[in-house]
């Protein structure tokens, strides 16, 4: 240990074992970075947790922790909340999406003067991380099908959330328009309900409480069998305005496109209010957020503008289709099936690719032939290509919308960097 460790904040007050663990983690991360294996945050966290299994708990003790979990939008929402809370104090966050305990530990170990820890959490780890970090607030945005070959099924996940959050002291900020999220949150003591919308409803036809067939007239939903129903929301997204619990409307002016981000901003404003940040202030701060980890980023390839869009599952693809330029703007689709994507491509058939009729479409990625069959059956005109460069060379005029699933998106980002 250096004689005068330079960070003066909470880590200076850590117990010796935790200090050692933090230092060891930083060393491991630096080695990993030097070796060109990415940011090193996950390996660093693993090393640190091995030395001090209670490290996450220790690091979180000095922070007001906010957890964010969902199938879609958690990285972006974490970023929006972090921006909003900067109005009230220094924020530390796992901004790059390392959302399992090791990555989270690593992110918090960087805390120096921070008051807030805004943490994205993988759905499956919410119970563990909530137990270790004693959060003040937990934002639950949505739950839908995602990577069924390796993660648990959506209703079981909702049940798991419900059981683990039951005794939580945290304020739960939950999407009242998502029946599974509502089921997960409805046994909690302090819930702020947000009418944040739900575009993809195919996982929400069966009542999570009793299995009855859900009725969904207009915005409302209820189960006629057991009476489980949509709670009265405190906050709501109306068009492009946030309506707060007093009934005042505040405009959302994001750089990020799409309905899903209006929804994320609404939930973020509700979270910020828990910590006394006024919605107007919170929303103004969110305007500064541009691309998050490359999502929605516009790049230039051979002189053509290409917008990079991430869509990992049917709900994500549906939201993405609503924000792309209208036909005849060219669209590139790239799909992989690595273990991080899920190796089963059946989900392609839960996505309404019929919506792309009228766009010139180019398909690529490891599973471009699965896409080809899917588009053939959807009646969409398409061409199979080997690379983004080839698609760009063939594409008719207009901004090119490139939509990709997880590892295919990372590949696109590497490709455009050259």
């Amino acid at each position, binding site marked *: 240990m250096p004689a005068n460790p330079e960070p003066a904040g909470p880590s200076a007050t850590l117990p010796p074992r935790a200090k050692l663990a933090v230092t060891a983690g930083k060393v491991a991360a630096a080695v990993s970075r030097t070796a060109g294996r990415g940011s090193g945050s996950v390996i660093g966290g693993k090393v640190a947790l091995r030395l001090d299994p209670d490290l996450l708990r220790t690091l979180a003790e000095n922070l007001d922790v906010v957890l964010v979990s969902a199938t879609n939008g958690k990285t972006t929402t974490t970023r929006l909340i972090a921006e909003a809370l900067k109005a009230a104090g220094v924020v530390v966050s796992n901004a790059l999406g390392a959302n399992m305990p090791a990555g989270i530990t690593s992110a918090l170990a960087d805390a120096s003067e921070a008051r807030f820890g805004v943490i994205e959490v993988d759905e499956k780890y919410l119970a563990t991380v909530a137990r270790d970090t004693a959060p003040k607030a937990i934002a639950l945005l949505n739950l839908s*099908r995602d990577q*069924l*070959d390796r993660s648990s*099924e*959506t*209703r*079981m996940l909702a049940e798991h959330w419900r059981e683990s959050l039951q005794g939580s002291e945290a304020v739960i900020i939950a999407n009242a328009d998502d029946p599974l999220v509502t089921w997960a949150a409805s046994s909690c003591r302090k819930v702020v309900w947000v009418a944040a919308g739900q575009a993809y409803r*195919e996982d929400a*036809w*069966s009542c999570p409480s009793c*299995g009855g*067939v859900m009725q969904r007239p207009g915005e409302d939903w209820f189960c006629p069998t057991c009476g489980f129903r949509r709670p009265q929301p405190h906050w709501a997204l109306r068009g492009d305005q946030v309506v707060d619990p007093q009934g005042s409307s505040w405009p959302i002016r994001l750089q990020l496109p799409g309905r899903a981000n209006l929804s994320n901003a609404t939930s973020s404003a509700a979270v910020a209010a828990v910590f006394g940040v006024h919605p107007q202030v919170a929303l103004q701060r969110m305007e500064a957020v541009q691309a998050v980890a490359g999502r929605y980023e516009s790049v230039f390839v051979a002189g053509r503008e290409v917008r990079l869009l991430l869509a990992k599952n049917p709900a994500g693809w549906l939201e993405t289709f609503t924000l792309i330029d209208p036909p005849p703007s060219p669209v590139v689709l790239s799909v992989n099936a690595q273990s991080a994507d899920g*190796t*089963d*491509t*059946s*989900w*392609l*058939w*839960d996505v309404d690719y019929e919506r792309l009729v009228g766009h010139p479409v180019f398909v690529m990625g490891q599973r471009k*032939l*699965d896409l*080809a*069959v*899917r588009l*053939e*059956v*959807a*009646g969409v005109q398409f061409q199979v290509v080997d690379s983004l460069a080839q698609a760009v060379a063939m594409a008719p005029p207009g901004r090119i919308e490139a939509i990709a699933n997880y590892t295919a998106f990372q590949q696109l980002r590497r490709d455009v960097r050259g």
Partner: protein
Amino acid sequence: MSESALRVVWIYPDLLSTYGDRGNVLVVERRARQRGLDVARIDVRSDQPVPTSGDIYLIGGGEDRPQRLAGERLRVDPGLGRAVENGAIVLGVCAGYQIMGHEFIDDQGQRAPGLGLLDVWSTRGESHRNVGDILAEPDPRLGLPTLTGFENHQGVTHLGQGVSPLARVTVGGGNGTGDGTEGAWRDTVFGTYLHGPILARNPAVADLLIKLALDVSALPPADNTWYDALRAERIAAVQQPA
């Protein structure tokens, strides 16, 4: 609905549509239309009666609890049983396959009665879950090429005397009984563990269902370029794992 339309009934999309099963409906619809047929697609939610007048019935996969609910609701609805008595074609996948048998294990670990449309019964595997690409050689009487698909199930399905295996597994788990069988069929009723979805990976099976429904031995040719390319890629990928 036109009298001349091919009636394709999708049973319980609200409960049994977790693994891209909609793809099977879309592929049957598409391939029938490509042959100049009118298609009437009927989606039956689990609070609606199953019509008896369908030509092809499709039942998909689902989580354990929806499977139990679907089984309970189909058992008190005589629609599907009557349709089968009238010679309707049925394809059940995964949970849908298990429901068509005599019994299956439900989400509470209990033995739940099925519909008895296939002489099979399902138990739960000890620990091993079959997840991954699967290849199987179909019953030669069906005149089908190699089957390719993706399986994801813990269930084990045992076949009785009243059915034949749909196929013999060359890669993967299939019925999970250790005898190399995959799926089951008799007359016009078919059950399988193959997702993918099965009809997108194996358009010849979609054509078989259509031929049985029309009672014809052949259909006009359809363009199989992309299906064939996908099949070749998946078959090669499974035979030489990366």
